[in-house]
């Protein structure tokens, strides 16, 4: 029997005044590590906020973990963790107090929440800093404590909104490693929202690309990476004219780019037939560039749509 989706939306629409931020989103996402990718302002955060009922949706139906949020919002959120993009700590609280309090708000008894808070702070790599006020934390510490509070009640699904924002490369690497382990070690489904392709590419098994409030693409990372246009860019130093003539004989469509390189539509899943063809005729290219995979291409399209 097929596993029920952890997130299911149908015709989800959200408007701010005359601007439509989410335009009829239909999705069914299974368990796993899911990347929500899109340029800034694409509607990723709004999408998450609508799922969590932090914003009221205008139209559509949403189910999380198999339950309709309109009917079981509170019960559903008990099994969900959320680390928002912006700082949202409670002023004056120590790190461990803050995480304990979040555990209590999620329905844990005080003692269990306190013990679990320390476990989660260990998990995110916080040491003695936990006894300092959250107000005094660096950006990296705030990101880690946000993840700890999202995990303290042991949810089944965690939303992480731009968790690497404002971090240096080593901080980013650490946070990404942590997020990767959440899914791999514990089986907690994660939804990682980011405008950085690298973040999502590294740890997510499934990708949803959003632009202008619409889902541009939704597939597994492997499938998106496999999907490529059957074309390649060939850089020739010698025998360029002969190569062009040979391509004509082969009935492969080609065009000459502004930089003088030749774009060949070889129509095959891999470059092997093109390489074999060149070998047979003793053409020695300087370079053969494979076309970008669908993930890159779709993301670039999304970025362009976002800018336009």
């Amino acid at each position, binding site marked *: 029997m097929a596993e029920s989706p952890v997130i299911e939306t149908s015709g989800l629409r959200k408007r701010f005044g005359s601007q439509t931020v989410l335009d009829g989103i239909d999705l069914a996402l299974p368990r796993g590590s899911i990347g929500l990718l899109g340029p800034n302002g694409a509607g990723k955060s709004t999408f998450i*906020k609508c799922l*969590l*009922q*932090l*914003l*009221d949706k205008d139209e559509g139906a949403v189910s999380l973990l198999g339950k309709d949020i309109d009917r079981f*919002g*509170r*019960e559903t*959120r*008990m099994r*969900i963790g*959320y680390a*928002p993009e*912006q*700082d*949202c*700590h*409670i*002023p*004056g609280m120590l790190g461990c107090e803050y995480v304990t*309090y*979040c555990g*209590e*708000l*999620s*329905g*844990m*008894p*005080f003692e*269990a929440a306190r013990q*679990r808070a320390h*476990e989660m702070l*260990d*998990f*995110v*790599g916080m040491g003695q800093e936990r006894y300092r006020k959250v107000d005094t934390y660096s950006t990296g510490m705030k990101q880690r404590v946000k993840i700890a*509070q999202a*995990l303290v*009640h*042991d949810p089944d699904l965690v939303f992480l909104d731009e968790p690497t924002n404002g971090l240096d490369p*080593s901080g980013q*690497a*650490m946070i990404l*490693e*942590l997020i990767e*382990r*959440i899914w791999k*070690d*514990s089986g*907690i489904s994660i939804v990682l929202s980011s405008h950085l392709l690298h973040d999502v590419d590294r740890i997510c098994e499934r990708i949803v690309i959003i632009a202008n409030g619409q889902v541009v693409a939704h597939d597994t990372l492997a499938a998106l990476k496999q999907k490529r246009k059957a074309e390649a860019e060939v850089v020739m130093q010698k025998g360029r004219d002969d190569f062009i003539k040979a391509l004509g004989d082969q009935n492969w469509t080609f065009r000459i780019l502004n930089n003088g390189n030749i774009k060949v539509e070889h129509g095959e899943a891999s470059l092997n037939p093109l390489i074999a063809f060149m070998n047979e005729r003793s053409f020695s290219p300087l370079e053969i560039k494979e076309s970008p995979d669908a993930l890159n291409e779709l993301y670039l399209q999304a970025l362009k749509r976002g800018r336009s």
Partner: protein
Amino acid sequence: MSDWKPQYRRWKGQSVSLWKRRFSIARYGLRLCLAGKAIRAFLFLSFSQLVFLCAVFIIFGQLVTPGSVLVEWIQSKSGERTGTIINGLSSWALLYPEIFVDGIYRIGFFFIKYASMPLTLVIVALFVHKLIAQDLASQAIVIYNSKALTRWDYLTGKFIVVATILSLIWILPIIASWIIGNALSPDWAFFYHSLPSLMRGLLVGAIAVSSLSLIALAVSSLAQKTGTAIAYWILGWVILSSLASLSQFINPAFDYINPFAAIDTLSSAIFRMDSFISEAQSTIPFIDQAIARISDLDLDKIPATDGSIIVPSLFLATLSAISILIINRRTATS
């Protein structure tokens, strides 16, 4: 980073009830609001009401008890004759416990509002910014709303915070002084005779606490920055008092736009000092003439008797409803 090996362990415990979650918000909120020294000092000042009431009730209990420590002390200081007069008066008073016992408690509980009102103004100003304004300013409201709570659960927790602090001013002195005063009285029937006064005091306290709590929450939710919440609270009262003062030119009912004026009138109506005086006049010899000499009270003008209790109730209910609308609107979006 190489030494860091994160371990994740699943939690299989039982979740607590919704009310426990609401009380967690209230518990933390109370700790935060009562953290300042100034608020503790003012709350200590509000306990002086309790001490004063306890002293009055204990002295009354001692005076009406033949052979009590106080009566014996007075006798030793003023002679046998004074003691005999006191004993005579106390015996006379105990003939009418429903008037004297209920009366002393009713008067005590009626006048407590004159201390509670200014204390409320000051004490709420000291913590109003820590209610909702701080959560809105720091965006902590997002965290609350993303947990297994609704906006109303959050607001219930916050309401408990304000209501608890205001109860220390409006209700605690009444309950505590009633218990202590009666426990130290010569006759435990005093509990019974003073019960109506306790009920009246609790009703006024409940009305004041609930309406003022909602107004405080609304003011707190209006502010984007914590500092402005205090300014709004103080300015709000200045403006409402100024508007209320215009009532003499517009309509006397307009006075109730100031919640304290509405509470004051409702308190007068609930305590029914008019009926108490009438009863005392008709029941106890000599009281009628004594009151006629010291008071020019016109019973027809007392709110409870002319039906105008509805107007302050409506004003207070409207102010509370507006407060709920403001709070709902301000905390709706994350």
